[in-house]
């Protein structure tokens, strides 16, 4: 029972972390029909930039702001100077290949700059330690992460559903040409969405670092899990990203705890079943955040 409760909470932690990743990936996909294969690299880059920020500035909280800003700016530049060249016509596959090339370059350069060691990051002092919960002790940082993930989900939903910019983004998903016809700078919206998506990945990297640690190869591990999340949840929807992330986070955590040899297998089995029953994912047919 106690073990079950711990696994349940850990599943929530994993789910929230995956949600932040999947929200960024899904946001970018919804807007541009591009699955950003460098998303995992941005997670790792965000984590490492955060690590350097913690070392230089001595504050986890500053790192939480600096890393998404830096990586988001990189995302903005990538969209503006590289991805934009491939818009128009059926060039989605080429865009995906471009993001794959970027992922290769990024993962090599990250290893060059930060080395090939496992770097662990300590949670901020305010959130270190454990808290008694029912009959168990649970790390405060992990509880805070769950709360943060839920808050971010709410915030993203409010932003997309209730603000003017959110409406433009949603309209861009449905018909970018029409939005452009209404006098809105679609290019800026695209660049902005890509920047926000990559910033979300970097944010996940910083807050995930105390849990996953940072090491070369993590970029693709996390990318694969995020891809499974959006495939299961349905691409391009916030709702899909949220429930998909929870489902996969739980499946991964419980799988690792109870059937360690086949935990990854379990995740892919979930994915296969969802695909068989609903090829467009659990919430694939519905529009943004509805």
């Amino acid at each position, binding site marked *: 029972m106690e073990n079950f409760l711990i696994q349940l909470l850990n599943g929530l932690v994993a789910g929230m972390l995956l949600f932040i990743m999947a929200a960024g990936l899904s946001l970018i*996909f919804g807007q541009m*029909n*591009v*699955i950003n294969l460098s998303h995992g690299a941005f997670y790792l880059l965000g984590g490492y930039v955060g690590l350097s920020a913690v070392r230089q500035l001595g504050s986890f909280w500053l790192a939480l702001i600096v890393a998404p800003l830096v990586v988001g700016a990189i995302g903005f530049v990538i969209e503006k100077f*590289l991805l934009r*060249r*491939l818009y128009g016509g059926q060039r*989605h*596959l*080429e865009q*995906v*290949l*471009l993001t*794959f*090339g*970027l992922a*290769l*370059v990024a*993962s*090599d*350069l990250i290893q*060059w700059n930060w080395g090939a060691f496992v770097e662990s990051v300590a949670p901020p002092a305010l959130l270190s330690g454990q808290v008694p919960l029912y009959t168990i002790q649970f790390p405060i940082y992990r509880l805070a992460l769950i709360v943060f993930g839920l808050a971010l989900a709410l915030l993203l939903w409010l932003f997309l559903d209730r603000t003017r910019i959110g409406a433009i983004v949603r309209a861009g998903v449905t018909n970018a040409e029409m939005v452009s016809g209404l006098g809105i700078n679609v290019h800026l919206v695209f660049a902005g969405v890509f920047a926000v998506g990559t910033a979300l990945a970097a944010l996940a990297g910083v807050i995930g670092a105390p849990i996953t640690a940072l090491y070369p190869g993590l970029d*693709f591990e996390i990318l*694969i899990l995020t*891809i*499974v999340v*959006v*495939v299961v949840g349905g*691409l391009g929807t916030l709702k899909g990203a949220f429930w998909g992330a929870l489902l996969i986070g739980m499946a991964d955590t419980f799988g690792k705890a109870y059937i*360690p*040899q*086949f*935990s*990854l*297998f379990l995740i*892919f089995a979930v*994915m*296969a079943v969802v*695909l*068989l029953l609903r*090829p467009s994912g659990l919430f694939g047919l519905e529009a943004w955040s509805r």
Partner: protein
Amino acid sequence: MTAVATQLGRVGTWVNRQRQWLWAAFFIAALVFPFVARPYHLSLTIEVLVFAIFAMSLDLLLGYTGLPSFGHAAFFGLGAYVVGYIASTSPLALGLTSNLLVTVPIVMAATALVALAIGFFALRTSGITFLMITLAFAQMLFSIAIRWSSVTGGSDGLSGIPRPTLGIGPLSYAFASRESYYFLVLAFFLASWWLLRRIVNSPFGWTLRGIRENEQRLRALGYNTFRYKMAAFAISGAFAGLAGMLLVHFFRHASPENLYWTTSGQVLIMLIVGGTGTLTGPILGAAVIRLFPLLVSTYFDRWRTLQGLLFIAFVLFAPKGIVGLLRGERDEELL
């Protein structure tokens, strides 16, 4: 850039005119090569030939059928592990035989069957979703290889895989030396090339091109496109498995890396750089990408970065790959 393209186009025209002579020269060179080359260069050539088979098999999916698989290492690695499990002398494996008469049919049938099982799910989707799902399935096989260590050897993989033999009873030959193995791989490469060429130029192959161009229309014409895609997936998987098998027989070791996304990524890069939709493209791509680190690493440490940049440059500026550059402005088939 345009000047380079024009020059390459001229080279392409010249190659096309001198085709017969070039073929003759190629065969003589291929026969003489192992007796004049250094062992290291011979090993590299063997690897290039193996990866050429692998890249051609992916081209059947991506280039001809329009299915962007990003998990092709699944079949490459599966071929590697199947032959490893049959032939390896390690206590984990069966250690039965390395006779090609037995192993080639088993490996190709096993990979084709697994391809059908994966295709049953993956081929319900297309485009970007297909790419992600094939990636996910390949990672699933990788995770099995890593975790199910009592069968697969875990992260160490399976070692003790002997070089293959061919024949029955006393009439069998062991491809023990590097030179003999080179000729074996060359024979498999030429056979695969010839077979795949027959396949892509058959009515079946043209149907696959039709699926690539407009699947809806083919379905309206009464084609069961799902079955055609399943067949293409199975054939492609079988050739990828053959390539994986040839690689582990050479290195005598099957490792989880054979199943890892980096392997899928490498073969995809080979195909894009070489040029999709032709069988020459993957061969050229395999050679260029496999030899690239060698050319670069003496001058620059970060050859992976350079390789990534080269790949990005091809995606942005020459999406038809080296073959597209060689063809220049001309539309007709080159080689």
